[in-house]
């Protein structure tokens, strides 16, 4: 299996790709910042709900996104696990050994986890619609220095190459009995692979630099920017208006309570 970067294929058809990549890069920030700044549970849920609807309507594979989110569970767990023991005054449960869990701390830990997962889910939903060139195009449009973009491109260029060559080395070693070797032998092998990867990486970077030099590289890589359309700006304004309405105009708590009463009278 070929190792690839987590970008969409250039020839893949997706409704969301009609929107300018820069807008797709900005929208998640518009969605995430309000619920990270404002401590509003209902706003958080609403924004997540909107993202889920967008994913469903525009056929973004959110199941893959959820499966990728699993990776961050241990980190979120580590961040939030101790909060209920220190934050708050209302006792939720007291252990016989003297440790207390507070209600406010539990709420905060839950909200914090929801916010982290929610923010990641929104970012991944929108970023997963970008192709490699759209991602670079959006960064170019944001006027990120070309030196940084160039470095990023070269770094991204080598990730799949190095990953696949490492995989081949491991496979070749497996064929020569790596799996039956001892733990220390395994560790030594991995150290060799790491060393080899560093050398290979340096050699390849040097060659790439030489090939760029042959084509006139002077430290700057420039790309043709993709033009913004009026409809792209319109979509951006629409999202801003929706969020502003949710924060200042619509009483989300009232709506949720109403819906809840309707479902469970």
């Amino acid at each position, binding site marked *: 299996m070929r190792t690839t970067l987590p970008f969409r*294929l250039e020839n893949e058809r997706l409704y969301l790709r009609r929107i300018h990549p820069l807008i797709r890069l900005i929208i998640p920030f518009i969605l995430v910042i309000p619920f990270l700044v404002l401590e509003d549970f209902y706003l958080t849920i609403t924004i997540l709900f909107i993202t889920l609807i967008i994913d469903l309507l525009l056929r973004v594979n959110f199941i893959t996104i959820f499966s990728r989110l699993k990776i961050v569970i241990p980190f979120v767990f580590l961040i939030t696990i101790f909060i209920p023991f220190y934050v708050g005054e209302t006792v939720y449960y007291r252990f016989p050994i003297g440790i207390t869990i507070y209600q406010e701390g539990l709420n905060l830990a839950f909200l914090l986890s929801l916010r982290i997962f929610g923010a990641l889910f929104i970012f991944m939903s929108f970023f997963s619609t970008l192709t*490699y060139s759209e991602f670079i195009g959006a960064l170019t449009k944001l006027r990120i220095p070309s030196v940084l973009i160039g470095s990023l491109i070269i770094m991204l*260029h080598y990730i799949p190459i190095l990953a696949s060559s490492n995989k081949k080395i491991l496979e070749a070693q497996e064929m020569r009995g790596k799996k039956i070797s001892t733990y220390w032998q395994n560790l030594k092998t991995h150290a060799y692979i790491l060393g080899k990867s560093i050398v290979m990486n340096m050699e390849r970077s040097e060659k790439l630099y030489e090939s760029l030099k042959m084509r*006139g590289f002077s430290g700057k890589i420039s790309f*043709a920017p993709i033009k913004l359309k009026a409809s792209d700006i319109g979509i951006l304004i629409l999202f801003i208006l929706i969020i502003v309405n949710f924060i200042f105009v619509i009483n989300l708590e009232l709506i949720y309570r109403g819906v809840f009463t309707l479902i469970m009278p």
Partner: protein
Amino acid sequence: MNYSYNSGFKIQNISFKLEEKVVCGLTGNNGSGKTTLLRLLVGLLKPKSGNIKIFNNILTRNKKELWEIRESIGFLFQNPDDQLFAPTIEEDISFGPRNLKLDEEEVKVRVDWALDAVNLSEFRTYSPFNLSWGQKKRAALAGLLAMKPKLLILDEPFANLDFTSIYNHLVILEKLRKENEITIFFTSHNLFFVEHWAKKMLFLDNGRILFDGKPHEGLRNSDVKQLLGSYDDILTLIKNR
């Protein structure tokens, strides 16, 4: 011209002329210095002594002058992954023309032409990661062609390619050579290409030129034959197993 690495390997007393618009094949055993010689020719390495003249200009270390010479040289690396870097094939091909400070319209014309020349027009928006080895090689070649070089230096252009890809590559290169009067200097271990495609052959051994002349004469040269071995030796070995 002379060159030496810290490891001790030397390129010694190299001197040869290359006529314009011809195909020249450089061959030699592994470690004979072929790639080093190519890197010297394009100014990626500096000779310890002697000069290299390309189209009557001496290769210097002056960046501006070197770039002026390099504008007319296209150097194809053996591994296309060492060359393709941009998110799409189109962007990668336009990298060189943009560095030539051409306007965007001209860049587009050149990219279209180069893509068409290597039969990759339908892959223009593809990422290099999603191409096969042969397609990558063609895309890397297109990146050079878009700069309209007068001299193409190809390091093992047919290595790791199947027969169909080799045929397609040769068709492209021959068409380009005839239509654009390009000089081609290539390295290969495969003597078939040196014998049948090249008009001139250079045989390198341990950093020295052992033969410089017509390929059919070179392949009959006793020193060259002894060093290269032959298909007959391999065939005899297989038949006698």
